């Protein structure tokens, strides 16, 4: 086991355990929403659990998983040791310490503020300080990634950066730009306020900083999944990447457009003018473009794989793909779920239509397809592929690993479709109980919340299978030599014009200019309004 492997493995285990805990809580939530009278059911426990589930999935599982994958990509795609491995360990422990502080604050019942922690709900200071440490740890990871790239660049002056690393660097850049917002929110507003050093906080300013961070956050999750779709999936399916330069174009477009879009989460907020919301909307719609391109390239790469496996007809290449390989099936199924999620996303982003779905169950249906499937299911597939390589052990219980992605797919369809529909029927999200005193419209949600609970049960079973395979492999997998991590070859090597997409400094500068254009004036105007802050509240 190399030293990089050990570092990646440490991050991977934290991610997997966070996912396991979060899934157990999710089961209770899904059942509770169906108004089942469970003995230990209470509002206090429900909201505490949603806070833990949201934080552990959206912030902890994803961040640690991405750090693990990033280290593997940096070491293998660049084919040189990491530059700054000690910093990598320091970052790991910092992020872990932060995570433990956040979890302790939540489980002790003093931080039931959900993972969005909108003030003036006030959590225990340990929650905000822990979140800060988690982010500071991730910045250390960014530094290791950038230093490794620089070191490689000095040794390879003219070669294009390997595609997998190109995508990870885009992830790093987006994360660095995005986290400025949440760092400002937490350090300048919330920590002093939660410690009693300042009296009030402006909730709109805090929300604006949060969503400045919150949308690029989704690309921080998604881009590593795209790296896998472009550079790992084609290889695992037995083929080649259809187009290397277009993949680079995609990553660059995400760098440029990820951040100046945050107002699409604040369409329903007062105090931000409709004109600026429209500007963010237009940016948001253009960010669909790189995902359309991705769909083409990835499907074309799968077709290449099918033909290399001997298919000749129009569609029989689909049949020849290795559907029993848990990496391939996880990723392809996650892409199918993402297609539905993308459609819903276009609705969310549509200025006027958003009013119908904002903060309804539709939203929770939506993000379980995107982060909860496109990202999480891809990551589960990656874990099946990576864990043996990192530990030198064969995958244990591999039958469960083969079934698990299909189970997730079915469970998620039931869960998310029913939530989309109840959302359109007016059911809010984030509620412990959906009965509303027997109101007629609430009665119309009942059958669907039941269906959603069934979906939740299947998802829970699927998550359980995943955890059994992980823990089984880690503890009892048979030691055996494993194939090295390798990335897909492109059909054609990137030509000289692709070099434009490698100029990441240039694209970062473009991104920063757009961010200033999108946020500069609205922020100045917000700060100039006569505003009244809010004192803290802890209604939990």
């Amino acid at each position, binding site marked *: 086991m190399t030293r990089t492997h050990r570092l990646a493995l440490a991050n991977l285990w934290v991610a997997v355990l966070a996912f396991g805990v979060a899934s157990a809580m999710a089961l209770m939530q899904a059942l509770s929403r169906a108004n089942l009278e469970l003995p230990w059911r209470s509002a206090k426990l429900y909201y505490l659990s949603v806070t833990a589930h949201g934080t552990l999935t959206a912030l902890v599982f994803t961040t640690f998983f991405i750090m693990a994958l990033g280290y593997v990509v940096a070491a293998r795609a660049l084919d040189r040791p990491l530059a700054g491995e000690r910093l990598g360990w320091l970052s790991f422990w910092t992020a872990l310490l932060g995570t433990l502080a956040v979890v302790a604050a939540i489980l002790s019942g003093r931080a039931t503020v959900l993972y969005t922690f909108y003030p003036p*709900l006030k959590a225990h200071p340990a929650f905000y300080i822990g979140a800060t440490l988690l982010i500071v740890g991730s910045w250390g990871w960014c530094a290791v990634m950038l230093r490794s790239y620089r070191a490689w660049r000095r040794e390879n002056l003219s070669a294009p950066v390997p595609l997998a690393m190109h995508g990870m660097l885009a992830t790093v850049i987006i994360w660095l730009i995005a986290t400025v917002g949440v760092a400002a929110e937490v350090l300048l507003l919330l920590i002093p306020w939660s410690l009693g050093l300042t009296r009030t906080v402006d*909730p709109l300013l805090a929300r604006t900083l949060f969503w400045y961070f919150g949308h690029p956050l989704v690309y921080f999750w998604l881009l590593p999944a795209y790296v896998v779709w472009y550079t790992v999936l084609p290889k695992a399916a037995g083929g080649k990447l259809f187009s290397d330069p277009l993949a680079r174009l995609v990553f660059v477009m995400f760098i440029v457009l990820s951040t100046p879009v945050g107002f699409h989460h604040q369409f329903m907020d*007062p105090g931000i003018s409709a004109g600026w919301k429209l500007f963010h909307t*237009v940016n948001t719609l*253009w960010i669909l473009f790189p995902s*359309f391109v991705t769909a083409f390239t990835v499907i074309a790469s799968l077709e290449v794989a099918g033909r290399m496996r001997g298919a000749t007809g129009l569609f029989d290449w689909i049949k020849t793909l290795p559907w029993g390989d848990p990496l391939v099936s996880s990723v392809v199924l996650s892409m199918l779920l993402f297609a539905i999620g993308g459609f819903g996303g276009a609705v969310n982003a549509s200025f006027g239509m958003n009013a119908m779905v904002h903060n*309804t169950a539709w939203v929770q249906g939506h993000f379980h397809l995107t982060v909860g499937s496109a990202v999480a299911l891809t990551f589960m597939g990656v874990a099946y592929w990576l864990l043996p390589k990192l530990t030198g052990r064969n995958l244990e219980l591999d039958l469960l690993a083969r079934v698990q992605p299909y189970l997730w797919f079915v469970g998620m369809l039931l869960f998310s479709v029913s939530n989309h529909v109840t959302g359109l029927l007016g059911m809010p999200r984030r509620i412990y109980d959906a009965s*509303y005193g027997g109101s007629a419209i609430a009665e119309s949600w009942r059958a669907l919340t039941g269906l959603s609970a069934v979906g939740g049960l299947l998802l829970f079973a699927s998550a359980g299978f995943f955890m059994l395979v992980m823990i089984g492999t880690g503890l009892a997998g048979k030691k055996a030599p494993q194939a090295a991590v390798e990335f897909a070859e492109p059909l054609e090597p990137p*030509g000289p014009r692709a070099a434009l997409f490698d100029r990441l400094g240039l694209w970062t500068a473009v991104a920063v200019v757009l961010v200033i254009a999108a946020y500069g004036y609205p922020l100045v105007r917000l700060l100039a*309004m006569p505003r009244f802050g809010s004192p803290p509240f802890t209604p939990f």
Partner: protein
Amino acid sequence: MNVGLYERIWMWAAAAIIAVFVGVIAVSTFAYAVRPPSHAETIAPAQVLADPRFSPPGVVVDAGGNVEVHVVLLMFAFLPAEIRVPAGRPVTFRVTSADVTHGFQISGTNANTMVLPGYVSQFTYTFEHPGEHLVVCNEYCGLGHHTMQAKVIVEPPAGEAGR
């Protein structure tokens, strides 16, 4: 950079779809004035119940016949909890919070806004038909969040149905 024919077609098609989305939104915004509630007005949250803009909360019909509804949200109730408005006429809702962040949604419709302490949210909605609607808080506001509910009762326009 060598981009295949099908790929080019696909990319142009994707760009065209997005351009259509942008166009539809632009038309609905500028020609039909469909836009999200974006009113900018501030208010001291601790004093909303004493502020003339919200005291008392309720339905106000001015001399010109314009209907305004003033609603205060607080943990865990709507003031007033029963809102009577006429059908077929634009109704302007003005909503604020006395404590934490809430949401105001007339369930099953697109009458929806965030309600932040310190700010007044405002939007206009026309109920076409008489009937009763559930109003919910759609932003988590504490352990009683799911208990926050109110009613909008839409009455037939004056002069109809024996009124």
